[in-house]
């Protein structure tokens, strides 16, 4: 897919996110919108996968560590053809396969593992990548984390392990939007210097603008070429990206837009 098409896809996905959340009346727009380009790049260009065969044994794996951003994943999965787009509007409702945080037990095609309790996805990804290495498989593992999530100690246990096992088949992405529930990361809990942290843990560290498609694709390509280390892409993003009144506002971490706000958002997303 050309960059232009990917960018168009990102706008579609953002529209889906807003509409889904308006319908569900709760959920997490901020971190879904900040990671939209990254997710679109993964599902429509980077990942080796087959939406018609979600359990294809040779597929790459994507682990959403920041489970609350599942609206963007659900929208990508639907648009990629894993399930009917109509199902998006069952999000967070009783008997839905689209749980408020991904639940593997609901068997939604494309969901590899449950998530929602922060800090766990990178460990799972490390295990997954180790398993592929053990079987001499060439598949890759991708993991999306939030920046607030990096407060969790387990992330750094996993970071240590990923480098220790030289998992060059593992690529993590930090959605570095700078906001967590209670405010700015700098004020709540400073995680900087982030690049130096990952470097010192032994990771190939790449910093990009997480909304520029070409930069994202270049970073994933560089990660694939790395021979000895896992790669982390620190993607500088804007929480709530694409909707002016949501951008950089911590309050939109976990709040659904009203009908009126949805209309305003959709006017901007063209």
């Amino acid at each position: 897919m050309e960059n232009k098409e990917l960018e168009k896809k990102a706008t579609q996905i953002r529209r889906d996110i807003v509409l889904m959340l308006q319908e569900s009346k709760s959920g997490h727009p901020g971190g879904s919108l900040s990671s939209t380009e990254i997710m679109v790049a993964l599902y429509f260009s980077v990942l080796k996968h087959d939406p018609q065969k979600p359990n294809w044994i040779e597929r790459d794996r994507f682990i959403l560590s920041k489970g609350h951003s599942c609206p963007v994943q659900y929208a990508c999965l639907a648009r990629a053809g894993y399930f009917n787009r109509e199902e998006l509007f069952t999000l967070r409702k009783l008997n839905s396969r689209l749980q408020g945080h991904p639940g593997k037990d609901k068997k939604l095609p494309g969901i590899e593992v449950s998530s929602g309790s922060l800090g766990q996805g990178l460990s799972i990804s490390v295990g997954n990548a180790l398993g592929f290495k053990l079987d001499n498989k060439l598949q890759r593992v991708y993991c999306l984390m939030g920046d607030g999530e990096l407060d969790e100690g387990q992330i750094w246990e996993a970071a240590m392990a990923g480098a220790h096992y030289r998992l060059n088949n593992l690529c993590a992405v930090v959605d570095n939007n700078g906001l967590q529930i209670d405010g700015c990361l700098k004020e709540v809990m400073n995680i900087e210097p982030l690049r130096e942290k990952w470097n010192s843990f032994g990771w190939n560290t790449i910093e990009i603008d997480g909304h520029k498609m070409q930069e994202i694709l270049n970073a994933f390509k560089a990660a694939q070429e790395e021979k000895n280390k896992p790669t982390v892409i620190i993607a500088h993003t804007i929480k709530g990206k694409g909707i002016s009144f949501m951008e950089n506002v911590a309050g939109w971490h976990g709040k659904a837009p009203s009908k009126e706000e949805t209309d305003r958002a959709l006017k901007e997303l063209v």
Partner: protein
Amino acid sequence: MGKMRSTREGYGEGLLLLGEKNNNLVVLDADTSCSTKTDIFARKFPHRFFNVGVAEQNLMGIAAGLSLTGKIAFASGYSIFVSGKAWDQIRNIICYCKLNVKIGATHAGITVGADGATHQALEDIALMRVIPNMNVVVPCDAVEARKAVFTIAEEIQGPVYLRLGRGAVPSITQESTPFIFGKALTLNEGKDVTIIACGIMVWESLKAVEELKEEGISVKLLNFHTIKPPDEEAIIQAAKQTRALVTAEEHQIIGGLGGMVSEIIAREMPVPLEMVGVKNSFGESGEASELMEKFGLTAKEIVKAVKRVLKKKKTILPL
């Protein structure tokens, strides 16, 4: 009484034998491999062994990830740390996703001894059995532990918590004794009272049975190695048959084997029940045998409990 061996030794031996048979087996540890006995497997199959360092939460996450690639992952560590520190990982990933991760949790109970209260898991059965999809097995001796390794790997698709001890315990079961997951093993038939025990307390119960026999009290004894899913039929049948129960466990009486039995009999067949176990307290340093004595985890205490329950049976349930 056979040779004295610890259940963790049976575990290590089981992993080695299973590893020879099944290439899909991977073993993980959190810097405790010499203690958990996973070092035996590690020496033979170094490429299928992962020591993740002192990081129990990461241990569970990596085991989960390995299981997602089709491996049977045995994650080992001290029971207090794997069940406590990594509870969220076990609940939200391993159990919620019903992953094929087996937790080999050694050094359970007060018999850890001199290391003291921080290292004595007395709440782990409760913590584990409350989680949906989790299975809990507590072998009574090394042979049973070795068999349990095979059974939970080959017959159970999903998570299992295997609770193991540090100290050497007498052999109770034989090579020929069947280990059937989810089925209590009757070690003695009797008509006056039933003792339901697990782990090291099965041996104490056997001693109690002998002592009570001399006093003319006929005791049925169940080795209740599978705490979850519980063999409800065996409990209900025992309650009907003997109309008095005593549970014995190296664990808090709250939420463990005794808790499980009382949940079942309260619903299905209320009969008098006495629980032998640790009574809402932390442990402390000492020799295993001294601690068993101090915390009331002995045949002597079981005998007393039997007498108490028989008294209740007489007053509450006149036949």
